[in-house]
């Protein structure tokens, strides 16, 4: 479903590299964790998938689509197929939890009836029914991240991209977020997640890609955190 073909990302005229000759693929319904030190290239890799960053060499495919050949005007359409979750949540501060989730559907051009039906459903999936009308600053870190997950899944995307989703969370909130991500994966959505939390990796017991210096150094089908 996602295919990296010999992708490199170079800075400063090639003197430093965020990614070097990365080739791998992700099959539908997989749960892939990407681990590595800071600066190993994990975030750059995810940015390639959502077309936030473009490779210096090589190509990235979404199914048969070359992501970096999508015309600018079609990018919003492409991004609607992907749900994104970030370490810093990236919620709209002036919108309530409900409105944050609804916004993703509005941007998709969904009808009001669909929004009224799906938003409460997504919020109850992340167990936030009672906080729907709170603004982000009124929520805890774990709650904010669950709002972000509800927003990511509400459009039934093909794939979820999660960049350090537990980076700012305490162990209990981390556990909850990981459980929710597993549940989403069990329901049939592909998940690609970066992390450097050993506990998270060991708990998921799925495929682990280990990166170092912009290269893939290990790719284990039921990996452990090895660094």
């Amino acid at each position, binding site marked *: 479903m996602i295919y990296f073909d010999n992708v490199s990302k170079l800075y400063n005229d090639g003197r430093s590299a965020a990614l070097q000759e990365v080739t791998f693929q992700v099959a539908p319904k997989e749960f892939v964790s990407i681990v590595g030190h800071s600066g190993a290239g994990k975030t750059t890799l995810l940015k390639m998938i959502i077309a936030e960053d473009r490779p210096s060499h090589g190509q990235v495919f979404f199914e048969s689509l070359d992501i970096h050949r999508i015309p600018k005007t079609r990018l919003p359409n492409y991004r609607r197929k*992907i749900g994104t979750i970030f370490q810093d949540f*990236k919620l*709209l501060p002036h919108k309530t939890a409900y409105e944050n989730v609804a916004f993703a559907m509005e*941007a998709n*051009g969904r009808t009001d009836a669909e929004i009224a039906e799906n938003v409460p459903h997504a919020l109850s999936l992340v167990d936030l029914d009672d906080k729907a009308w709170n603004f982000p600053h009124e929520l805890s870190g774990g709650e904010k991240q669950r709002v972000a997950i509800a*927003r990511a899944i509400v*459009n039934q995307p093909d794939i979820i991209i999660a960049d350090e989703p537990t980076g700012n969370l305490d162990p209990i909130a981390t556990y909850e977020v990981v459980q929710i991500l597993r549940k989403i994966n069990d329901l049939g959505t592909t998940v690609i997640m970066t992390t450097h939390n050993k506990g998270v990796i060991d708990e998921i017991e799925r495929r682990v890609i280990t990166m170092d210096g912009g290269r893939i150094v290990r790719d284990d089908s039921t990996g452990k955190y090895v660094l």
Partner: protein
Amino acid sequence: MITGFRRVVKAGFVGFWRNAYVSLASIFVLTIALFVIGATMFLNQLLSTSLATLQSKVDINVYFVPDAPIEEIERIKAAVEALPDVAGVVFTSREDALAEYRERNKDNTIALQALEELNENPLGANLAIQAKETSQYESVARFLEEQRALEQPQTPVIDEVNFARNKDSIDTLTSIINATERASFIILGILLIAAILITFNTIRLAIYTAREEIAIMRLVGASNMFIRGPFMLQGIMYGFISGVLALLLFYPLLVWVGPRTAAFFELNLFDYYIVHFGEIFGVLVGIGIVLGLVSSTLAVARYLRT
């Protein structure tokens, strides 16, 4: 499509209220800018009206000798009226000239006594001639001098043409009028540019605070128009409200200043404001809306690139 439009409008209004402080700051600056523009407009109106009044006060006077034959006076009046540069000619007869003299000197007993002792009217008739442009007085004066040169020396008709006496003041006035018009254009231009730049920067700062939100909206897959729309609507709202506010600000100011301008410039600005309310409303609110809309569209465009 309609759903999208409705959502953009709703998001515009919600954004306006939830960012009340930022909206307030933008409206405040825009109101001041529009007030400055409006004040310059009023000032311009005042200037051009007073210039027109001044210009209408400039004339050439032809004084006839007291015993000038009435046919000769009529002939010269008709000839002057036929000149293409002449806007109007006012004839004052000997009797009217005397009555005017008496009226002007009614508190001056010595002058009136002297007049009584003369036993006859010492004043001649006169013509007050107005040209269409102040620069045309020269040619009118030349025509009158030619008329005088044609007269028989023993039966003079024209006693005096006072253009030569007024020439310097007419020239000065002409150059003052031209300089004032040019200066007010330049000042208007500078104020307009300053107002536009300040407004643009304020709205850009307001939207700068929203750059994270714009980035998030893009990540969620919102199209550019869906992101831009609410900000454009807010720009329009800023412009409309500021235009109305500036218009309201002028009301008490002009109530106070109107009678004073009426006394000095012969134009009551308050009456002008009431009579031309529609136009002034259109101009101020129109400029406000365009300024707000263009500023916010350009400001958002920055964050929609790449």
